[in-house]
């Protein structure tokens, strides 16, 4: 087989009000891991979507192995051997189908209309075997029972079965923990060895420098350059991305207040308790599935098993509405499913919890005021948008995430929060903006409220937290003060092994 080469010439794409991409010349080769980086809204996903046939009205030319191709439908791109593993793996799989059915989907019909599950499993097994692949879970499992990383693996294997020669990963690790990331990287490396081209989009610098052969930087829809990994440093890349050096926040261990603001006890297990102090940012970390999200949701939407005290007084939270009234806010992890009203505009999404606060005594909305406040916060968080009244589905992933952060900052400004629970708040947010968000989180906490910052990205927890609590198997297993912070220690606690081999 020839070595796969995809070349683009002057690739451009406009949306109403924005030039998302302008004159992109790229070369992606088989056997190479090519990273694509850039700030939120730089055009990375747009590039990936053009290559995978989502947009039919792009400008410019695409060549595969020297032949000019028109990639105007996803099917066409797929036939040329291009497949995508989107961050939202769910959208690419059919939940009530089995693993085998999903693996063979889009070729299922070629085995006749009525194929038994048994036969499908057999075919899938053979195919996987001939490619030297092994799935670490049963082919009869329903997709709905798989974890995110298993679903990702399934998608990757599906691409391989269909002879993909370029696999695009758009922020694949944002919902993965350190162990799953390691596994994913092993797989990506094996893809490379098979001569497959990998286009890897991510905001996580350490990952990019671990895995890439080449790094391409986009800024404001233009390509800044492509660099061999060994010839640049992370700082260089960040500078190319945002046009200036990033400002890192420095946090020194500060004198912590010892006034508890939120206390949680688990009734079924006396040993399980958590105290959050006033003015504190408490980092909550652990592997994916360690129970962080569940815990936060239990607090926020009420649980019979939890005893919760706010400002020293026991409170009963039965629904999210109670929590918000008490000043407890929660930023959910899955922004599309749990956060956004995708068909509504920016203002609507930023004010979702606050319509009542922007209404007069008769219940009428004060829309002007609402727009002003939304604008102020959108600018504060540097959301990239063309019009406050555009639907949020047309924003880039990171910019959507900023909106739901803004949502609670606005509520806080209006009503004054006591506690904010952030679940994976920086998913999809670019390096520069991340630092700003850490800053905002710290400032919010310092105004006298308590913040729980839950993240499976240990680096960022180390950066932003005053204190870290590690969870494993739905339990708090360790509490570490800032002066004792160590990545190794936390990783090993989270993974449940006390030694970790680092290479």
């Amino acid at each position: 087989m020839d070595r796969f080469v995809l070349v683009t010439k002057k690739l451009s794409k406009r949306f109403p009000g924005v030039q998302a991409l302008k004159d992109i010349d790229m070369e992606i080769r088989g056997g190479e891991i090519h990273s694509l980086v850039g700030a939120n809204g730089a055009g990375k996903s747009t590039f990936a979507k053009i290559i995978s046939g989502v947009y039919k009205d792009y400008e410019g030319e695409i060549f595969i192995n020297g032949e000019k191709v028109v990639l105007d439908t996803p099917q066409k791109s797929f036939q040329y051997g291009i497949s995508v593993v989107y961050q939202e793996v769910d959208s690419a799989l059919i939940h009530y189908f089995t693993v085998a059915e999903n693996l063979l989907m889009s070729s299922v019909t070629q085995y006749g209309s009525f194929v038994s599950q048994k036969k499908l499993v057999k075919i899938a097994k053979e195919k996987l075997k001939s490619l030297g692949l092994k799935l670490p879970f049963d082919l009869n499992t329903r997709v709905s029972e798989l974890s995110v990383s298993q679903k990702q693996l399934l998608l990757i294997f599906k691409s391989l079965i269909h002879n993909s020669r370029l696999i695009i990963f758009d922020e694949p690790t944002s919902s993965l923990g350190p162990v799953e990331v390691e596994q994913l990287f092993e797989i990506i490396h094996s893809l490379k060895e098979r001569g497959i081209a990998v286009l890897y989009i991510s905001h996580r610098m350490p990952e990019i420098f671990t895995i890439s052969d080449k790094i391409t930087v986009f800024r404001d829809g233009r390509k800044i350059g492509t660099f061999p990994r060994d010839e640049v440093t992370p700082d260089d890349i960040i500078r190319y991305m945002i046009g200036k050096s990033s400002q890192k926040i420095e946090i020194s261990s500060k004198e912590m207040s010892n006034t508890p603001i939120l206390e949680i006890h688990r009734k079924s297990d006396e040993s399980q308790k958590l105290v959050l102090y006033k003015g504190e940012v408490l980092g909550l970390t652990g592997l994916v599935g360690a129970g962080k999200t569940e815990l936060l949701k239990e607090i926020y939407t009420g649980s019979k098993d939890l005893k919760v005290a706010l400002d020293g007084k026991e409170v009963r939270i039965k629904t999210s509405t109670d929590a918000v009234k008490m000043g407890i806010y929660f930023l959910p992890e899955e922004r599309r499913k749990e956060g956004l009203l995708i068909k509504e505009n920016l203002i609507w999404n930023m004010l979702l919890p606050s319509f009542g606060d922007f209404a007069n005594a008769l219940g009428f909305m004060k829309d002007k005021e609402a727009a002003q406040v939304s604008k102020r916060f959108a600018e504060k968080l540097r959301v990239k948008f063309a019009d406050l009244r555009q639907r949020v589905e047309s924003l880039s992933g990171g910019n959507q995430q900023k909106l739901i952060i803004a949502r609670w900052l606005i509520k806080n400004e209006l009503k004054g929060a006591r506690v904010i629970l952030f679940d994976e708040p920086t998913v999809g947010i670019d390096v520069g903006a991340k630092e700003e968000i850490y800053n905002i989180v710290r400032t919010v906490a310092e105004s006298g409220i308590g913040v729980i910052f839950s993240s499976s990205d240990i680096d960022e927890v180390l950066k932003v937290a005053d204190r870290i609590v590690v969870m494993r198997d739905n339990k708090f297993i360790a509490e570490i003060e800032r002066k004792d912070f160590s990545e190794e220690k936390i990783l090993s606690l989270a993974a449940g092994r006390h030694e970790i081999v680092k290479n």
Partner: protein
Amino acid sequence: MGQSNINKGDLLRIIVAKYGVVIALGIVIALFGIITPNFMSVGNFTNILRSISVITVLSLGLTVALAAGAFNLAVTGIAGFAGALSAGLMVWNQLSAITSSVIALIVGMLMGAAIGLFVIYFRVDDLLASLGAMYIAQGMTLTYTGGLNIYSNMIKPSPGGGFTTAPGRISDGFIFMGQGMVGVIPMPVIIMFIVIVLVHIFLNNTKWGRNIYSVGSNPEAAYLAGIPVNGYKIFAYSLSGILAAFAGILLVARLGSAQIAESQALLLDCVAASYIGFSFLGQGKPNAFGTFIGAALMGIMVNGLSMLGVSYTTQDIFKGIILLLSLAISRLSQK
């Protein structure tokens, strides 16, 4: 930045998605205007508006529920029962028009709320649950009326044999709502426009409307933002019930009596009007003016086809086609 490179296909799609129903309305009016001689007269348009007034109000009842992501197929059933009740209270119990109407509206609201509670409490499918509720409401209507239409000083067989004459009348003031004229404009048309504007303002300019739409567009996100989702669903069902009941009352006023089978036939028109309305101005969601346009489209079809001598039964074919087309258009506007 000035020049846009939207290609022709996309432009067409955007126009169809945004103005599709308005264009359709224009085409239908123009067509009938050309082929039927008396169609383009002020008198006929007044007729059409009058004929759609009840359907519009009824459809708004469905629209409000749909806005909260809740289906309420029981609107026609509620309208039938509330209408019969208001007439019965006047004719048999000699209550005033206002008292009877208020009672009927409250009953409609409670029926709506009951459906909402049932759907939420038992987590059942709202389409089927409200279909069940529609049958209950129809049964209630038949039981209450004994299967008879209700009119002023009506006569009905008494249980012991012989006949009883109802002591009361459907008051003139009540009937004015449905049959009166203010200058050249029929009263029900004025009422219809008032209701449209009120529903529009409620849905678009109040905090409750925003929350209802939010619940309808992503209940999980709305809940996690602290909005009492269940409360708003029940609220929307209650409003839906009130509007349906009001449509029922208006129908009695128009006909001068409670015709028990009359409102049942309106279900398809009602669903069509609401769904056609989704795509109005590309909103992609239930809305008051869109619903009016939808009702108008249906009404004009019926009117024009009747003038052409097309039978009622055949008209259903056209209604069904319009409903399907509108579904397709509203799909476009959601893209």
